[in-house]
């Protein structure tokens, strides 16, 4: 390479104060860019990890995204229910391996209450083949037992054996409480990083029991109420549930079953494949994180423009240096290369330090992200996309360097050996 390239490093070192600031600016912007990219990837993976192993989600006929949102993400409401008889029919189908009933509509301090069966703890999977596991206690053994998600227990400081009151409806502050039928915390699940953490689980029968003396959202007058113990003696088989999850014995029967359910004559049903619906939902949500990446790219651009300003400002005081270099035989091309190499060096160092900052940031926040948001940030070597982003930043730094380099090229042609100060 040109003799000038060897000089670039010395020149940068000579101005190490300003150079360090420039490098740091680029490093921070690159760390932001890589951080956003890492979170984008992990958020998408974590999103896709919300549910796994389930072949079909079945609910009353509405939209696939709506069904996915209220069954899995605990967002929004069901418009109609599925009859328990239909659920039993599907559950008894010879191709069906297991089913998990879901009954929603109540809440506890803003956390949703979900009625289900013990099959939930056996068959619900997330993030590949992770099954639900208990941090403390176990599944329901009594009618008035509840199993809490990790975040519910953390946020409300519940321990095993505590009594909790379920509220009717979904408000954060509800005036209609099922306070005559308190629940005992029988189990607390390990953290999953999915909406399961924010769910209060009770049995389907318990859902029936707490609503046994309710009509149209109002509890019966005092003298007609059914006490908690009395409810135990009643038939607590529900009439309907909100939705249910289905695991098939063989994957090859999933589409057949899906079609059969969607064309079910006795009531209007919707069966969706979770993966497909998740992808559709991500297409909606993913726009926001693309916007984040674009913002990060603009921050990198600002960093490189800062470098451009620094180099352009230094040019005036470097005309003497250029004349000296010309006098010892440097070609205008060498002067051009000197400045491009300087910009490239600053950009490359900035990008590398940015990588280090990213890794340091990931190491520092990994535990917190995992606990708080269930994001498992992978600390492997940079991905292809990350390398491409880094390469882009470095190439852009060289390209930006061409601007002062062209100017110095022109000046050195005009000045020649004349030393201007």
């Amino acid at each position: 390479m040109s003799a000038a390239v060897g000089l670039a490093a010395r020149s940068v070192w000579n101005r190490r104060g300003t150079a360090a600031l420039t490098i740091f600016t680029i490093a921070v912007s690159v760390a932001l860019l890589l951080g956003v990219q890492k979170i984008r990837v992990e958020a998408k993976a974590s999103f896709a990890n919300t549910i796994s192993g389930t072949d079909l989600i079945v609910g009353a006929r509405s939209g696939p995204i709506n069904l996915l949102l209220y069954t899995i993400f605990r967002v929004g409401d069901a418009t109609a229910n599925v009859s328990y008889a239909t659920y039993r029919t599907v559950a008894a189908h010879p191709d069906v391996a297991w089913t998990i009933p879901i009954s929603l509509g109540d809440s506890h301090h803003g956390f949703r209450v979900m009625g289900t069966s013990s099959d939930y703890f056996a068959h619900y999977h997330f993030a590949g083949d992770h099954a639900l596991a208990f941090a403390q206690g176990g599944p329901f053994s009594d009618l008035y037992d509840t199993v809490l998600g990790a975040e519910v227990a953390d946020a409300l400081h519940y321990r095993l054996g505590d009594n909790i009151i379920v509220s009717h409806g979904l408000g954060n502050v509800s005036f209609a409480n099922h306070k005559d039928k308190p629940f005992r915390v029988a189990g607390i699940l390990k953290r999953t990083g999915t909406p399961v953490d924010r769910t209060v689980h009770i049995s389907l029968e318990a859902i029936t029991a707490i609503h046994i003396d309710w009509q149209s959202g109002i509890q019966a007058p005092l003298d007609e109420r059914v006490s908690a113990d009395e409810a135990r003696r009643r038939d607590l088989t529900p009439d309907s549930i909100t939705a249910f999850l289905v695991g098939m014995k063989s994957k090859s029967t999933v589409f057949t079953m899906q079609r059969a359910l969607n064309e079910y004559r006795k009531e209007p049903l919707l069966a969706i494949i979770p993966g497909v619906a998740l992808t559709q939902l991500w297409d909606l949500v993913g726009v926001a994180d693309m916007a984040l990446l674009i913002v990060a790219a603009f921050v990198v651009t600002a960093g490189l423009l800062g470098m451009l300003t620094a180099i352009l400002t230094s040019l005036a005081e470097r005309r003497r240096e250029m004349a000296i270099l010309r006098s010892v035989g440097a070609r205008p091309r060498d002067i051009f290369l000197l400045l491009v190499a300087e910009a490239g060096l600053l950009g490359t160092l900035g990008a590398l330090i940015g990588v280090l900052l990213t890794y340091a940031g990931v190491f520092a926040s990994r535990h917190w992200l995992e606990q708080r948001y269930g994001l498992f940030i992978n600390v492997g070597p940079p991905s292809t996309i990350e390398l491409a982003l880094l390469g882009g930043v470095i190439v852009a730094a060289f390209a930006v360097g061409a601007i002062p380099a062209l100017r110095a090229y022109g000046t050195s042609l005009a000045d020649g050996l004349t030393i201007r100060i």
Partner: protein
Amino acid sequence: MTTRASPASATPPAIDLRGVEFAWTPGRPVISISRLTVRRGDRVFLRGPSGSGKSTLLALVAGILRPQAGTVAVLGTDLGTVRGAGRDAFRAAHLGFIFQMFNLVPYLSVLDNVLLPLRFSAVRRGRVANAEVEARRLLQELGLDPADVNERGVAELSVGQQQRVAVARALLGRPELVIADEPTSALDTDAREAFLKLLMQECASVAATLLFVSHDLSLSPLFDQTLSLPDINRVGSRRAAS
């Protein structure tokens, strides 16, 4: 590019300008020289007050500028026949420059400043067996303390020391022609003559031609030949007359 370092007697002059015309803007020439010759090995004093076209003349001899008319031959090479990068290479190989002041690249050590021409010229590298040893020898001959060479940054040197480093750089790799442009004007009177004698002695030891440009005629008796640019440059004399 050709090197014409053939034996002394039949060699062409160090500088030979014939009918050279140069104008930055058409119709307003700054240089118009019918003939200017500097013999090999001579020590020539060129008196060049400001406004006499001195910088332009040096740029023409250095091959930075090309004349609109006439020929500029340096060490027998007609620079008009050499392309831009070739002239840069020719300058790197055969010429040494010393400027008025601020001769040194601030981010290089004293030693690296002296070695700078070798970075740009394989010809000059080829003439020095052990560059670093030679550079140190030159610096020592010029009276620079080895400790200064090793440890101090160029900015910490006095102006006189900086000028001597510049001489070492100009002479490293034995260029045939050394051009010194007002190298003593930043020095005080006592130091001037000592510096000049040192410069001449070093030029003689490598058999280099010395073209010394200054407006200070008090130094001219030390030279073989004294030329006056306002007399040679017809533009300059016209301007001086008007």
